[in-house]
């Protein structure tokens, strides 16, 4: 491979990281504050994609605008889900079986509602942007991936601002650091948890709308993203927004370069081998194991505390 091909791969990895970050950030904020591994995240992503599709088909709303409209709608939806279901869960500093089962069950409910409403057909959103790309020399960059990347960066920046500049953000950080001390000093944990769940759901709906422009989707949509989201937030340190960005970049680079660069292997002497593309999906699993063994607090633990959003 020449330098242009390396640059091409690097750009593709960064754009893929944008997709990964957009889909993982909502899961991170919910885990950070509430210690809930939100298995229904895949369902929220799927609903976000259908939401953008409905707006696009019925009212000819551009899917990017549809994803933006999904933010407030899914924020309210998330708060309603919290009020109806999540708030009854027993409080805990660690993820509980009850929360896993509840969110898994809710994901199945969302899936089946989607099957009832939209059927089992694969759906797609086709706009002039979908298949167009920007050509820079020999490098072709899909426009829609650029949009998703920009949206992911926007999400991160907004979250960082919310975390550091608002009362709500301070409440969230306090609950992440020490939920008992936070309540003693007057943080309303129920209200903050409700808003956080709404925020996490809003970002999931937003990401779903954007992912609907990249992939075809059915009610089963979101399942492959769930594992990656989980790997990313473990990489990022489970409670860190900047860690999510780092985790997404690392995973995307490893997945993209892993199958395109020959790796040195010692077997009766040194030789170089490519990782077969069929093993690409092994990378997130392997990464998860390695990070849990070596850096259980995630990548962000390598950096100073000021890097941490919470």
């Amino acid at each position: 491979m020449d330098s242009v091909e390396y640059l091409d791969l690097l750009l593709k990895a960064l754009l893929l990281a944008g997709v990964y970050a957009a889909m993982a950030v909502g899961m991170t904020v919910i885990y950070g504050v509430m210690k809930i591994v939100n298995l229904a995240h895949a369902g929220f992503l799927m609903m976000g994609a259908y939401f953008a599709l409905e707006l696009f088909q019925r009212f000819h709303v551009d899917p990017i605008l549809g994803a933006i409209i999904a933010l407030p709608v899914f924020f309210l939806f998330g708060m309603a889900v919290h009020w109806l279901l999540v708030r009854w869960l027993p409080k805990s500093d660690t993820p509980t079986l009850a929360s896993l089962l509840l969110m898994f069950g809710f994901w199945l409910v969302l899936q089946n509602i989607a099957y009832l409403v939209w059927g089992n057909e694969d759906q797609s959103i086709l706009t002039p942007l979908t298949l167009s790309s920007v050509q820079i020399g020999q490098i072709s960059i899909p426009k829609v991936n650029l949009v998703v990347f920009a949206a992911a960066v926007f999400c991160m920046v907004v979250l960082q601002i919310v975390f550091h500049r608002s009362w709500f953000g301070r409440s969230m950080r306090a609950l992440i650091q020490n939920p008992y001390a936070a309540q003693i000093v007057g943080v309303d944990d129920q209200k903050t948890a409700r808003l956080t769940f709404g925020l996490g759901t809003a970002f999931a709906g937003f990401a779903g709308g954007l992912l609907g422009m990249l992939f075809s989707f059915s009610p089963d949509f979101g399942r492959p993203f769930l594992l990656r989201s989980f790997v990313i937030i473990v990489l990022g340190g489970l409670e860190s927004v900047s860690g999510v960005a780092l985790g997404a970049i690392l995973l995307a680079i490893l997945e993209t370069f892993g199958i395109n660069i020959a790796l040195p292997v010692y077997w009766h002497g040194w030789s170089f081998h490519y990782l077969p593309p069929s093993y690409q999906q092994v990378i997130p699993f392997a990464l998860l194991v390695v990070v849990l063994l070596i850096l259980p607090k995630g990548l962000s633990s390598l950096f100073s505390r000021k890097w941490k959003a919470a």
Partner: protein
Amino acid sequence: MRGTLAFFGQTIRHTSILALALGGIVTLCNGTGRAVVADDTIKIGVVLPTTGSESKPGAYQKEGIELAIKQINDGGGIMVKSKGKKLKIEEVFYDDATDSKKSASLTERAMSSDGVVAVLGGYSTALGTAESVMADRYKTPWITTGAGATAIFGKGYQYAFGTLSPVALIGTTSAEFLGSLMDQGKLKKGLKVAMVVENTDHGTDYVNGFNEWADKHKGYFEVVMNEKFELGATDFSGILQKVKNSHADIFLSDAHLPDYITMHRQYLQNGLHHQMVSYGARGPEANARQALGAGTDYIFAGIWWSNKLPYPQAKKFAADYKAFTGHDVDSWYAAPAYDGMRIVAQAIEAAGSLDKNAIRDALKKAQLKESVLPGQVLKFAANGQAEYPFVITQNKPDNKVDIVYPKDAATGEPVAPAPAK
């Protein structure tokens, strides 16, 4: 407030218990109903994915089977000599949700508990492979209508049959088609081929079939890349970069529908172009064309059936299917399922009883004349798998599709090389 919520919680609990009890009663009633009618019907198990990633093809296959059942039942049913009367078919359907473990256990359930005389189903090689082991275990004829990998039929099973021609033949026919274009001077000989196939027996068979033809016909192709990808992958940018770096002239993939759509979307977004592009048996599906628009033009596919086939019975099937389902038969999936049910019905009639061994023996000898599939006759080889020719279709602009190979079935001329956009 707490009191209201406690009342709300209790009401939910009581309602749930009531619902479970009602569900149990309904299930029991169903079981009782089945037992009562068992002697007057022939039970056929159908295990297909109507949810999950293969739900679309699975639903088409289910429709094909149900159309055949309706037509047979409308004609009074199947004459069973040992009963001295015609019996109607009763379908016992299970959705495996595109889950191979579920697929195997539901097939087992149909064979062991539901009293079926045969099971149809197993769409996709992965699910079909999982189901196939049950046939000999329960000595029940099993006819896969959607798994064409040769591995299933190479294990010496005595009760397994398949209505799809071997997948390897798609690779062979694709190579033969491209070779014919080279012979006609539409493509140059010695073109570089990049192959990216799914990591299943289906993908392996496709590559083997292509290579078999290429090895026998030296000088036509130079295979410069041969890689596999996992089913249901979300990102193909890495592997497509490899395709780009291979500087191939022809891009051949073998993928299922969701992967075809995702991969080709990324193929187009990355600005790739090849003289000829194929995704194996996928190409003309309406979903893909809706998802990618003109981006799917000129893709060619080796398929088991096309609604363009000129046979009168194929045209009648297409019309009946539309009347039955309310939508066009726009892909190949329904036809092998339709004929699968018809050949089972013919075998039951020939067996003259509902004895599973007799039905199996009759299936081995069965020949479905006026089959809607290419070649017009459906029969099983010694290993249980059907073998009939494939047709090559090519997508044309404005959502048109033509059969372009073999020549005697062609409805249009192949466009080669595919024009750059």
